[in-house]
């Protein structure tokens, strides 16, 4: 059994009166690719964002590489209660809306955090950035501004930007949902390669095909809880729960 990279227990999250996560547990081992599926409002994105503390949970515990990242006793609220730096230096995230820095070139997008957060020298950062951007197939776009790139290209830059920080875990929050269909493949291919290189990945997605082919485990969430969990062959081909069947029925019939 691979070493546990990420472990979440009893995660609860509220937005005002609305309970979005009602006690979610998840364990992800090194090199594992976990895909989280579910209808909108199921809380899957919120759950993902709990992992890197963009949405600190009201209750629950989070362990990154065995380290309890909660500063205070038991559950904490507010940023001060969590080890933000520890988490964010080990966990990278790619967003649905890319969120590239529009006032910086592609290269600068990937070098900025390296220099400011990791303290790498300009040369070091540039070298790493260039290497990563070439790996995602954008070596010729280093000096372009994001507005000139297609959605698919921008998302690949976003992946490179996150990878430049040498994360141990990568989170993907519906990263192809905002893309035109013909641009989706290039991003999924990049993610596939990443998985093959052994990156631990937690992927919230609607791309069932990707889940089937790349995921080690599929998690189905609905109404703030995990409904069903297991290898893709089981969850996708032979779902046990009624809600899973319903969801897949709706999605697969497209």
């Amino acid at each position, binding site marked *: 059994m691979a070493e546990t990279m990420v472990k979440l227990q009893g995660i609860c999250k509220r937005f005002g009166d609305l309970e979005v996560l009602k006690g979610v547990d998840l364990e992800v081992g090194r090199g594992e690719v976990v895909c989280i599926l579910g209808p909108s409002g199921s809380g899957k994105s919120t759950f993902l964002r709990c992992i890197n503390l963009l949405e600190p949970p009201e209750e629950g515990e989070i362990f990154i590489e065995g380290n309890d990242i909660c500063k205070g006793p038991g559950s904490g609220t507010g*940023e*001060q209660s969590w080890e933000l730096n520890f988490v964010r230096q080990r966990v990278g995230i790619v967003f649905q809306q890319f969120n590239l820095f529009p006032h910086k070139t592609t290269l600068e997008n990937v070098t900025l955090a390296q220099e400011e957060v990791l303290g790498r020298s300009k040369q070091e950062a540039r070298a790493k950035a260039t290497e990563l951007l070439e790996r995602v197939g954008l070596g010729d776009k280093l000096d372009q501004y994001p507005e000139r790139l297609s959605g698919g290209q921008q998302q690949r830059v976003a992946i490179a930007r996150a990878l430049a920080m040498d994360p141990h875990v990568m989170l993907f929050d519906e990263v192809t949902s905002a893309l035109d269909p013909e641009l989706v493949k290039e991003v999924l291919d990049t993610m596939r390669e990443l998985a093959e290189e052994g990156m631990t990945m937690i992927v919230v997605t609607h791309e069932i095909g990707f889940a089937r082919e790349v995921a080690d485990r599929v998690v189905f969430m609905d109404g703030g809880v995990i409904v069903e969990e297991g290898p893709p062959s089981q969850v996708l081909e032979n779902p046990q729960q009624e809600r899973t069947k319903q969801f897949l029925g709706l999605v697969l019939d497209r």
Partner: protein
Amino acid sequence: MSEFFNQYFDFHVMGEHFWEVLEAFLQNLVIFAVAAALALIWGLALALLRQLPGKKLLPIRFITVAYIDLFRAIPILIIILLISGGVPFLSFIPQSIRIPHWFGKPDPFWYGVAALVIVYGAFTAEVYRAGIEAVPGGQMEAARSLGMSHWQAMRHVIVPQALTLIPAPMLNEMISLLKDTTLISVIAFSEAVLVSREVLSERLNSSAMILTAFFFVVIILPLARVVDRLIARNQGKIARGSHIEVA
């Protein structure tokens, strides 16, 4: 009708006092330059203080908001008169600060600049805030997720983008500030309005005042047009979804 022109557009009077009024108008520009520079810096500081995150820093945010609300509400004239009328009597302040004659400018100049900076700091802070809040939330999320601290994110990601969104409203504030330099006339600083009033009482004629108005129009009208064009250009860019140029 000819009386109207005599009172307001007597070119002889304008001619005889032209250089006097122009020289005084230059004083308005000096006040403006000093006050604007300081207010822009002070306003940014206020805006950043207001953005400080976390529960522990709530008192700072609160005081900042209170300051901004207060000084947006009090008329500048009152502030000028409070400073010039009261500060000289505060003997616990050393004389060189209490009655400043820095850089060859007399105390009314500095009282006026102080009042303008105090108030326009509040106004510009609001412009900065609007700019900062207009930057999409995802930018901060991305920056923080990469491990940047709040300050690093502000400095490298948020503020540079905010600054591209604010030239138009900020220029409006600066135009307002330029006009408000005339308020210092009430504490006997020889700027254009004061000098025009002297001509008025001497010649019983308002033409010098019209001349002063003319100087303001000449400077401000082109600036106002620049503002209009900036707004139109950025609105066009937002509509086309392209990125807004950062200088």
